[in-house]
């Protein structure tokens, strides 16, 4: 029973990870060629701001 539970949990994990990738690919295709570049730039700036805020407290 425990083996079955673990097996089902493992299959769930793999399916969800693969689904997450499909969703990412869908969004990137939907938003166009430069989306990943723009996302990376925006996220880069957001992370720096978070770092600065953390260090200013």
């Amino acid at each position: 029973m425990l083996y079955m539970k673990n097996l089902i949990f493992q299959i769930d994990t793999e399916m969800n990870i693969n689904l997450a990738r499909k969703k990412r690919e869908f969004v990137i295709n939907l938003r166009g060629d430069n989306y990943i570049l723009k996302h990376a730039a925006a996220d880069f700036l957001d992370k720096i701001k978070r770092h600065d805020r953390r260090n200013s407290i």
Partner: protein
Amino acid sequence: MTEETLFRQLLDNNIPFILIGGTALAAYGSSRITIDTDIAVKTLDIDKIISLFYSLNLKMVIGVDKNQYPLFAENSNEAIIFSNKSDWGFIKFLSEDLELDVLYDIPLPFIHLLKSAQSKKVFGIEIKTASLDHLLIMKEKAVQNRENSEKKELDKIDIAFIKDKLKNNH
């Protein structure tokens, strides 16, 4: 370039890493869309990681231009010099179709993260994934320092997901 290739290369080069962020949450069943993949690493491994990723044709982001596009270090030496000067606690790598964040300034000591990490099969590879308790600590810290309201909302969704999972696990 795929996550599998990067994960395998890190494992083959004995560079310990832990999956965190949205992809880690997907491994626990979250349905939220995530664009980038986040991993936590030891600070001492940063130079090695930069050299490895440049050999795989990834590029490290070092700034943003006036059109809001990323600027990259041209080669691994430039990237290493830049990362040694920066105190941001993360480095961001990009290939044509993959965005990977490597975090080394995290709210928890790496060793604690590693000790509580769970092994999960991610893209066919057994990967150390941060525990739900630790993912919660990191998300709660992130939401405190976030200005971007859209991302703040996503953090709140993630926190609710983790708390729900933890409640069901106990």
